[in-house]
């Protein structure tokens, strides 16, 4: 049974159809990539799945056997669905540790305080934020650390599925390498990952399935190698030269 099932989901802003009858399935344990031109509706797709800040206009979304298209954002999170945002986001006035602690405590309720703290430390260890930085305010961190922190807050929720929106944008090569390793490690913990990315190397080296959106519609979906060889994808998204990558 797929972990996430998106069925004919649509979302419009005025006359603009940001998502138009999008359907796909994500199997448990896989890394599922999403690509597409700018403004094709990728972030909007994450928004409607997580209900933050809005759900879909129509369509059905089933996560882990539960229909979620009408659920409030925090309740969807409790089901084990975590996401990150396209820009680095953090709770600026909380310390690094508190950022993670509060996410874990509320994202996965009903644990003892000790478990919550242990979980937070573990999440920080996974993303590789050293102890020396746990006491810093989140706003003081560098871009890369903030991205890691955002990931750590998601990991601390011990989610079943993680939606990542352009985790590699703005990163240097070495940082991209690090991130790839990091995401693999998270996947190895049994977390299913859905990944939006424009950095192709990143996307290609991680995803097992690739979906390409174009103008709110699914252009194609399938094995990454085949997908990027698809003429329509090259035409709409990749452009001529990058097709070779």
């Amino acid at each position, binding site marked *: 049974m797929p972990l996430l099932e998106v069925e004919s989901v649509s979302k419009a802003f005025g006359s603009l159809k940001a998502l138009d009858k999008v359907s796909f399935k994500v199997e448990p344990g896989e890394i599922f990539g999403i690509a597409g031109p*700018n403004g094709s509706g990728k972030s909007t797709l994450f928004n409607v799945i997580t209900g933050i800040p809005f759900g879909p206009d129509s369509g059905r979304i089933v996560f882990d056997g539960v229909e979620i298209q009408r659920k409030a954002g925090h309740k969807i999170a409790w089901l084990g669905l975590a996401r990150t945002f396209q820009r680095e986001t953090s709770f600026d006035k909380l310390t690094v540790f508190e950022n993670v602690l509060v996410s874990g405590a509320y994202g996965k309720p009903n644990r003892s305080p000790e478990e919550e703290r242990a979980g937070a430390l573990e999440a920080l260890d996974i993303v590789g934020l050293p102890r020396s930085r746990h006491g810093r305010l989140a706003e003081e961190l560098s871009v890369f650390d903030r991205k890691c922190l955002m990931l750590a807050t998601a990991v601390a929720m011990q989610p079943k599925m993680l939606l990542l929106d352009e985790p590699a944008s*703005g990163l240097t090569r070495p940082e991209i390498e690090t991130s790839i390793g990091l995401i693999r490690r998270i996947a190895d913990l049994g977390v299913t990952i859905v990944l939006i990315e424009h950095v192709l190397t990143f996307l290609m080296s991680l995803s097992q399935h690739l979906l390409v959106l174009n103008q709110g519609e699914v252009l194609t979906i399938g094995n990454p190698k085949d997908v990027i060889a698809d003429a329509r994808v090259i035409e709409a998204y990749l452009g*001529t030269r990058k097709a070779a990558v």
Partner: protein
Amino acid sequence: MSGLLEITNLTAGYGRIDVLHDLTMTIGAHGNVGLFGPNGHGKTTLLRAISGLVKARSGSIRFGGADIANQTPRSIVGLGLVHSSQGNRLFPDLTIGECLALGAYTPRARAQEEANRERALKIFPKLGERWNQKVRTLSGGERQMVSIGTALMSNPAMLILDEPTLGLAPKVKEELCRAVLDISAGGIPLVVVEQDVEFLLELSQHLYLVNHGQVAAEIKPGQTMGHADIMALYFGQ
């Protein structure tokens, strides 16, 4: 040997902390300049110091002969030194059209407004389609397009781009690359900060590695430099 933009012994930073230490750099002598280096080591700060957003604590910045260190950003833009800033959130409540109009605010740019608008719309036709959409509601990549478009509207004599490809789809990146090269071929030198090394290499012949607020390495046009070498520079810091 002198360039269009001469930076000598520049020190700048925020609050109590210096980010740039005694940095010296020549821009424009060997064509377009590319800056690269690890995150958080002062590339953006350098660009901000050039365009007057950050005070130069010591040292000088000369543009076309005039010292522009600690001039107001307004007068620097007035000279044609135009900066499209990193992760620019622009004017969230203005429409795309209004943003571009603001780009042509300086008297220098006003004269060329028509031509510049056409040029920007040719590179990013999407902006024309969304002319009256508020910036706040644009997708990440679309915002980036507005940001660069606005810079082009300022009729630059020298164009500074801070991570212009951030969040852009490969095809748009490619088109941007071509367009920017066109612009620079028209006699407008570029300064580009970019993490995408291919893109950087394509645009610029003259590279600086910025590390710890200083120039750690300089690669001049003649020196051939492959992808692998740059990687080595990164990792070898």
